C-alpha cells in the first residue's frame, strides 16, 4: 500500500496526543491528500464526520497482548486499540470542518503530525454505531458516568 496523503496536526509526539479525538476539544488538523486523489473527496462535505484510516508509522513493534492506557492488566491486541498491532492500522472518527481542494480540515483530533493516511470513509451512523454495544473490560472505567483520567498516551 502507498499512503493517499498525510495528516497534519499540532501533535508532534505521542505523549502529547490525546488518547481519543473526543478529548481534544477544538483543536483543528487537516488531511493533505496527494493532489491526484482530490477528486475522490467529491461530496464528502455532505457528511458531518469521517473515518480516517492510517498507518501507525511510529510504532516499531508488533505485539499480541498489551496493556491499555486505562489499566495495568494485559489484554489481547485485538481487544485494545494499541498502535503496536499486526499491520499497524489506525482508525479515528473525526468531525469534518471544511474541504478545500485536496485538503480536508477536521476537528476531534487524536493523530500524530506526519501520519500516513491510507483511506477516508464517510461516517454513517447506521453502519458505524450500535446503541446496544457492550465494551468488555472498558465498561468498568465508565461506571456511574465517570470519564477516565489520563487522556494522553503514556
Amino acid at each position, binding site marked *: 500500500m502507498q499512503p493517499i496523503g498525510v495528516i497534519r496536526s499540532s501533535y508532534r509526539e505521542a505523549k502529547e496526543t490525546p488518547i481519543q479525538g473526543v478529548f481534544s476539544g477544538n483543536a483543528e488538523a487537516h488531511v493533505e491528500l496527494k493532489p491526484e486523489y482530490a477528486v475522490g473527496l467529491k461530496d464528502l462535505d455532505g457528511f458531518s464526520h469521517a473515518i480516517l484510516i492510517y498507518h501507525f508509522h511510529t510504532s516499531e513493534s508488533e505485539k499480541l497482548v498489551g496493556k491499555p492506557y486505562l489499566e495495568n492488566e494485559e489484554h489481547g491486541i485485538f*481487544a485494545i486499540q494499541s498502535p503496536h498491532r499486526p499491520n499497524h492500522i489506525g482508525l479515528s472518527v473525526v468531525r469534518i470542518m471544511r474541504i478545500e481542494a485536496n485538503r480536508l480540515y477536521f476537528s476531534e483530533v487524536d493523530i500524530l503530525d506526519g501520519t500516513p493516511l491510507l483511506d477516508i470513509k464517510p461516517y454513517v451512523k447506521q453502519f458505524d454505531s450500535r446503541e446496544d454495544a457492550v465494551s468488555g473490560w472498558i465498561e468498568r472505567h465508565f461506571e456511574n458516568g465517570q470519564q477516565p483520567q489520563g487522556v494522553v498516551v503514556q
Partner: protein
Amino acid sequence: MMKQLTIAVAGILAVLFLSTCWVGAAEPEKDTTFSVTPIGHVQKSEERTSIVLDKKHEPGLLGLEGFSHIYVFWWFDRNDTPEKRAILQVHPMGNRENPLTGVFATRSPMRPNLIALTLCKVVSAKGNTIEIESSDAFDDTPVLDIKPFIPGYDTAENATVPEWLEKSRKTRESKETNTGPRR
C-alpha cells in the same frame, strides 16, 4: 501464502502505477510503501459467518469476548487490480441514480487502498475463531485487523449524511428485512 503474495504484488504494481503520476513535494512519510499481511480469513457457510485467525494470532483475542461489537478490517481482494484501484468516483451502491461521488465519500469497494471496514456483532469467540452475526464479506476474504468497538470513542452521536444516502437507505430497508452492515 498466495493471498499475502497477491496483496504484496498488487501493492508494488499500485506503487509503480501511482509513482508515475505523483508529482508533489517529496516528504519521507508520504512516499513510504508498506505491505499488509492477513491475520486470518472469513469463513462463510449458509448457517454462519466466522473470522478464523491464523493460529499464531490467537493470543491477540484475549478478552475480546467481553465486547458485543468489533470493527473488522478486510481487504477487498476481488478489486485488487491497478485499473480498479485507480477509480476515484463511483455511483454509490452501483445505482446510476445516485450521483457520481468521490470514493472517499462512499463505502464502495472501489478505492486506492482496498481497506474495508465493517462493524460486526460478535456471536462467540473461541480459540482462533470469532463467529459474527452477519457480514457482506465474501468467503475467504483476507482479514487485516480487528478492533474493539467502544461507544463514546468511535461514535459521533449527531452525525448526519447527505440526502441521497438517506433516500437510498430507506428504499433499501423497505426492500429488505435484514438490516446488517451494508455498503
